[in-house]
């Protein structure tokens, strides 16, 4: 038997071991192995490798990675996590900002659809609660929550004052931010402002519409969140 012919047999040993060959091939390999010391030895060693692999046990990482995971989750979920024990840091990445833009467009679209629907007088009007204590789903389930989610009530006076404060803070730290980031933040704010204006106009025509009211409050909260993030980012970079 030439070396090449023998290699053809050894190349089939793993498939033979795993039962991946046809019945005819399985029998042929078995017959060859029975009469070939080299292939018999190779098959024995391959079997040992497979058994060794199956007995490998998981090994703990050399260091504790939880703190790093927790910090990243805190940023991802945009809420503080009590067990982290570190100051929450904010960061803006391009994907986050772009995602925020897309989300706002979707929310605006949802609102537009709602505005074009007849007033839902039979809808139960729910009292807004405090979203500060509201637990959010991982992965930002805002859109999935739909109209049943009761958004925070943001009083216009308090809202305007908070916006003004945050805009001043952002303005003072504006120079610390990358121009591209500033541009995207401003684009997002413009989208939110447009959505707030649209919702206010629609609500003026249909004051009893609970969906519209909820949407307006949620949109205002988004603007506050965005301003807080941007201001915090500028402060961190300062």
């Amino acid at each position, binding site marked *: 038997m030439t070396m090449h012919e023998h290699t053809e047999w*050894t*190349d089939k*040993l*793993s*498939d033979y071991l795993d039962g*991946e060959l046809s019945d005819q091939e399985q029998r042929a390999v078995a017959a060859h192995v029975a009469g070939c010391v080299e292939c018999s030895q*190779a098959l024995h*060693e*391959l079997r*040992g*490798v*497979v058994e*060794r*692999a*199956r007995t*490998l046990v*998981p*090994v*703990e*990482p050399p*260091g504790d*990675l*939880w703190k*790093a*995971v*927790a910090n*990243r*989750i805190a940023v*991802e*979920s945009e*809420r503080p*996590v*009590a*067990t*982290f024990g570190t100051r929450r840091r904010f960061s803006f990445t391009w994907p986050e900002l772009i995602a925020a833009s897309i989300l706002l467009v979707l929310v605006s679209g949802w609102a537009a659809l709602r505005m074009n629907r007849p007033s839902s007088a039979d809808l139960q009007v729910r009292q807004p609660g405090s979203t500060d204590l509201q*637990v*959010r*789903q*991982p*992965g930002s*389930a805002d859109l*999935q929550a739909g109209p049943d989610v009761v958004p925070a009530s943001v009083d216009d006076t308090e809202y305007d004052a908070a916006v003004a404060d945050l805009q001043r803070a952002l303005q003072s730290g504006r120079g610390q931010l990358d121009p591209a980031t500033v541009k995207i933040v401003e684009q997002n704010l413009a989208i939110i402002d447009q959505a707030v204006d649209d919702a206010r106009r629609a609500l003026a025509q249909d004051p009893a519409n609970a969906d519209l009211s909820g949407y307006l409050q949620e949109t205002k909260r988004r603007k506050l969140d965005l301003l807080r993030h941007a201001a915090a980012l500028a402060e961190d970079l300062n």
Partner: protein
Amino acid sequence: MTFNAGTSRVTGTDADVALAASGDSSAFERIYRTHVARVHSLARRMLGPGEADEVTQDVFVRTWQKLHTFRGDAAFTTWLHRLAVNVVIERRRTYAVQRDRITDDPAALERITVPPARADLSVTFDQAIEQLPAGAREIFVLHDVEGYKHREIAALLDITSGTSKRQLHRARMLLRRRLGAL
């Protein structure tokens, strides 16, 4: 595919998954503690120790993000493990290793073979796996360590089952020499 890790805590894990999905970070930390060794070992064996820590973090951040999509149709450990495999494979693609990894490398056999005098110097089976050529290592870990079938590996890696089989055999042949020295 088989997955045995964590089965002793099924009830606790199920409760923790539900809690974590509602935003309970303490429950999520317990999930992390239960599964981190499994995830980290997968990442280390498939990518090497240099990337294992970061990829493990990526896996758990992704898990946190995706928890609300877990429907309980499969065991949570299976769901998490598939997610981990996907994150690992994405990482390999990100670094454009994919195009080079399923290739025959005649030098691989020489690289993995150490002089007999050094063969007993703390060379573990895990370390031998890490020294395999990337493509062969990936398929060996998925098939022989994690229990995936060739058709599953082919789908995951966008290769043929035949390629998966050839790379697996290659990995085993390389490792059998090392195993004799361990």
